[in-house]
Every structure is written in structure tokens, then in C-alpha cells.
């Protein structure tokens, strides 16, 4: 099975790609100007931040960056496309021929290019004959498209790959966590000879589901010796199936031409000036090598926070990895709640406590108390979850959550299994049922287990 992805990520700029309209939305058609409405006489101007983010990503994926880049007009007619051409890149995109080291496997990156998003459409009217209602707030939003070679070999691998890639992208261009839900992908998948493209799938989960569905469908077709058609399909999120996109009355020809309104950009020189910081996964690999951390520990650490990694490394350098890991572990528990107030003085205080512990000045439990005082929190489950401990139903739930947590600890591979197949949750559900002995309903247990599993390790 061969899977290739075309991934679209919206770049976190403050203004749009080719005009100064704000990117933070608002009521329909409030963040618009002549340029993103495609008005006659208007023209584009390129946002420096968008170009730089594109270059950072090209560098992240070790792409060849050409000396000069330019934009192209891709012409097609659709009600959400203001100019009836999209400003995108065709020849000489910001990056080509790169690669991404996916857990030791090289996945080739064919190209990285920048383009504008069209507007968005609200459908109105009877199904099958809907009128389009267009909101141009999204028109001109900056997108990066990353195209991989078909180097992925299963839907689960594709999901993990994309998840890893997003971790790196997020860090490199400062994308918030929500980026993960809004990532859009076109997925190419071929079980046999013919390639099927599933267009415009939103989010990691849907992508894996769409690919799984398609893998099964193509396998069945091949087994019964029916031909798999080379076609474009879409994923129906409600019915969880892929469906063939109805053929147009004629085939579109985008007729790419160079965009004369923007000129050219000397990007190799620009790219050389840009220094990408060490990415989370690069750092995890380094932590493994440098401090002998387990792969899962290192990943968990970088996924929690790069700031926390800084603390870990500071302690590890002076006090050794063992103490550093112990203390970091205790700080990472309530990290979600303290991260915004975690300043330099708090860090120094933590470091001091760790140092005393290292000199045997304080015991293990004294350290724990010291840390919870510094962090201004009792490191307990209820505090972590932000619950009112006086409420008896909450107390019960804490009991349930503790049981779930225990089951998770006893099943180290559970998250990976769950990512491959959600039925892996049943194993935990069974164990929690047993350990809590009928205190909670099945529904409550299922909900708690699923909630915990979806949080990740």
C-alpha cells in the first residue's frame, strides 16, 4: 500500500497573505478589502511573515530552496474564488526535494509551496440545489501546502506521520494547538496499481478513517477482481465513507501563468538568514542520546513543553539526569496549570530545591512538598483536574480517574494501540471495571477511559 499526502496548513500570520486584512475573522465579510474581494483595479502585496514561514518550513524539511521564487495564477471558476484564479506557486516553489525523518524512516517531501485560501461557502436551500452564500473573510488567508511522495504504507502510519509533522510545524512557525484540527489533507492511496485521491479531509482522525475505509474498499475490489478506478473521492464525515466526486461536464485546465503583479523573491539568501530553532522531535532525539532517556519519556517531555525541557536540561547538566528526571516529572504533573506563571524566579526556586535534594539536604518527600509550595499547588489529581474536592460526586470521579490512571500506567503501549485501533480501549475499560468493583456505571467508565486516551500519554 502506498500513501502520499498533500497537507494544507494555515499560517499564523496577523494579516492575510496578499492584503492587510486581519486574519482573526469576525462576522461574515467583515475582514475584506478590494484585493481579497477580487475587485477590478486591486492588486496583491506579499506578506513578509508568510514568506518567511514558508521558508522556515522548507528548511525544516531539508528542501532545496531555489535562488528565486515567484507566484502563479491557477485559473478555475468557483463561487468562493474571488478572482476566479488562485494565486499559488507552480514552478520554483519555496522548497523542493526534501525529506522528513519519521521515526527512523525517511519520508520524501516533493514540494512546499505557498498559496491563498479561497473564501468559504455556506450552503442554503434544498439539498441538491443549494445556493451558495459566500463569506470572503477566508479569501486570501495564507496557506502552506506540503506534498509528500507516496512513502507511507498504512493509514495508522500516515496519521502518526502527520501528527509528528504537525508537532514540528507548530513549533517552527508558532502555530497554536488548534492547527491540528484545521489541518486539511488531500490523500493519495493505492493498494494495487491505480491511485485514488481523497480530497479535502479535515483533521487527523478523519484522515486515518478515510484512508482505512479506502484501503479496505480497494482491497475488496482487487480481491473480487474488479478494477479500482483512478478517480477523486471525498470523505463523508457523517457516514464515514469515501464517495466518488461526480465528474464535471469537462476537465478543467488551470492554464498556469506567472503572477506579474508580485515580481520575484530572492529566497535562498532570505532562507540562509533564517535560523530554525531546534524542533521538539530533534530535541527528543538529542535528549535520548545525551541523557539516556527512554524514547517515550523524551517525547513526552518535549510534547509537554519546550520550557520544561529547558529546566530539565539545566538540572541535568549540574545534577545529573536522574535527579533532573525526578524533579521534572513532579513539575510536569501540574504543568498545564502553572505554565503561564512559570517565570525565571520559579525556575530558580525549583532548581535550588533540586540541588538540595541532590546534596541529600532534603528527603524525597520534603522535595515533593517544597516543589508543591513553589508551584503554588498541591500536586494531586483533583488539583490537576481543577475540581472541587468537597463535592461528593467529584470525589467519586477522582476515584474513577485514579483508577483509570493506574490502568494506563500498567499498560504502557496503550496509546499506540489506541491510535491504531480504538477498540484497544476495551482492555482498559475491563481493568477499570474490575478494580473499581461496581462503584461506577459502564457508561461512566467508558467515558473516563476514552477521555483519558484522547489526551495522549
Amino acid at each position: 500500500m502506498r500513501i502520499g499526502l498533500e497537507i494544507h496548513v494555515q499560517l499564523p500570520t496577523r494579516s492575510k497573505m496578499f492584503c492587510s486584512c486581519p486574519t482573526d475573522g469576525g462576522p461574515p465579510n467583515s475582514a475584506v478589502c478590494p484585493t481579497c474581494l477580487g475587485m477590478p483595479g486591486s492588486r496583491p502585496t506579499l506578506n513578509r511573515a508568510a514568506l518567511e514561514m514558508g521558508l522556515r518550513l522548507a528548511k525544516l524539511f531539508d528542501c532545496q530552496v531555489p535562488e528565486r521564487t515567484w507566484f502563479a495564477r491557477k485559473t478555475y471558476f468557483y463561487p468562493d474564488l474571488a478572482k476566479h484564479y488562485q494565486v499559488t506557486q507552480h514552478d520554483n516553489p519555496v522548497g523542493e526535494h526534501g525529506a522528513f525523518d519519521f521515526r527512523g524512516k525517511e519520508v520524501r517531501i516533493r514540494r512546499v509551496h505557498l498559496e491563498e485560501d479561497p473564501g468559504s461557502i455556506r450552503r442554503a436551500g434544498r439539498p441538491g440545489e443549494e445556493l451558495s452564500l459566500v463569506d470572503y473573510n477566508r479569501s486570501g488567508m495564507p496557506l502552506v501546502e506540503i506534498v509528500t511522495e507516496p512513502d507511507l504504507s498504512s493509514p495508522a502510519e500516515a496519521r502518526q506521520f502527520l501528527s509528528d509533522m504537525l508537532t514540528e510545524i507548530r513549533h517552527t512557525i508558532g502555530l497554536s494547538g488548534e492547527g491540528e484540527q484545521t489541518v486539511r489533507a488531500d490523500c493519495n492511496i493505492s493498494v494495487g496499481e491505480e491511485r485514488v485521491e481523497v480530497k479535502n479531509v479535515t483533521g487527523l482522525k478523519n484522515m486515518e478513517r478515510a484512508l482505512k475505509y479506502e484501503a479496505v474498499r480497494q482491497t475488496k475490489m482487487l480481491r473480487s477482481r474488479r478494477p479500482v478506478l483512478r478517480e477523486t473521492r471525498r470523505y463523508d464525515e457523517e457516514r464515514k465513507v469515501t464517495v466518488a466526486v461526480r465528474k464535471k461536464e469537462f476537465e478543467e485546465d488551470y492554464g498556469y501563468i506567472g503572477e506579474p503583479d508580485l515580481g520575484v523573491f530572492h529566497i535562498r539568501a532570505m532562507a540562509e538568514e533564517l535560523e530554525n530553532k531546534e524542533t521538539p522531535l530533534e530535541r527528543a532525539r538529542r535528549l535520548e542520546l545525551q541523557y539516556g532517556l527512554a524514547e517515550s519519556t523524551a517525547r513526552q517531555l518535549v510534547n509537554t513543553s519546550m520550557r520544561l525541557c529547558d529546566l530539565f536540561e539545566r538540572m541535568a547538566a549540574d545534577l545529573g539526569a536522574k535527579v533532573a528526571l525526578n524533579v521534572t516529572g513532579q513539575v510536569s504533573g501540574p504543568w498545564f496549570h502553572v505554565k503561564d506563571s512559570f517565570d525565571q524566579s520559579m525556575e530558580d526556586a525549583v532548581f535550588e530545591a533540586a540541588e538540595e535534594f541532590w546534596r541529600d539536604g532534603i528527603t524525597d518527600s520534603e522535595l515533593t512538598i517544597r516543589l508543591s509550595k513553589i508551584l503554588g499547588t498541591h500536586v494531586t489529581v483533583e488539583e490537576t483536574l481543577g475540581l472541587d474536592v468537597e463535592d461528593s460526586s467529584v470525589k467519586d470521579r477522582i476515584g474513577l480517574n485514579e483508577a483509570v490512571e493506574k490502568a494506563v500506567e500498567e499498560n504502557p503501549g496503550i496509546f499506540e494501540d489506541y491510535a491504531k485501533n480504538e477498540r484497544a480501549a476495551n482492555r482498559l475499560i475491563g481493568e477499570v471495571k474490575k478494580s473499581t468493583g461496581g462503584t461506577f456505571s459502564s457508561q461512566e467508565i467508558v467515558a473516563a477511559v476514552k477521555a483519558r486516551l484522547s489526551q495522549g500519554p
Partner: protein
Amino acid sequence: MDSETVRRVALLARLELSEEEIESYSKDLSEILDHFSLLDELEGLEDYGFNPVEVADVLRDDEPGQDIPAEDLMKDMDTYQDYVRGPRLS
């Protein structure tokens, strides 16, 4: 350009042409394209650019702003609940 090609190009360009128009455009455009084949004489050219003068590295800072209030831009448009009304999708 034969009439089949004119038909195909007209579809791409979203133009509706009568049979008469197809005939006459086919004739004009064939003549014009024949003349364009003059360019085939020039060989070995490699350099090209998208502007006749150097336009390079003109970038805008990432500062949001709108010169014209959106309401002024939208006031003559056919809208429904602030959305621009468009044709059917299917």
C-alpha cells in the same frame, strides 16, 4: 484552431458561443495562430521573466489594517445575512 478546440476553450473560459460565433472565431484564431508560428523560428532562447523590468523582493510587513470600511465595499452587493449571494453549486 478548429471548431472543436474553440468549443473546449470556450468551456474553460466560461463563454457560451453560438454555432456562428464558433465558426467565425475558429477562422480568425486559426489565422492568428498561423501568424504566431513565426515564433517557432526563434530557437535556443532560455531566459524569461514575468515583468519587463526587475521587480524583486517587494514585501509588506505583517500589520493588519483595512483602508476602506468593509460596509462600504459590501453596500452595493447582493447579500443575505451579510453573505454574498452566489449561484447554485449543483
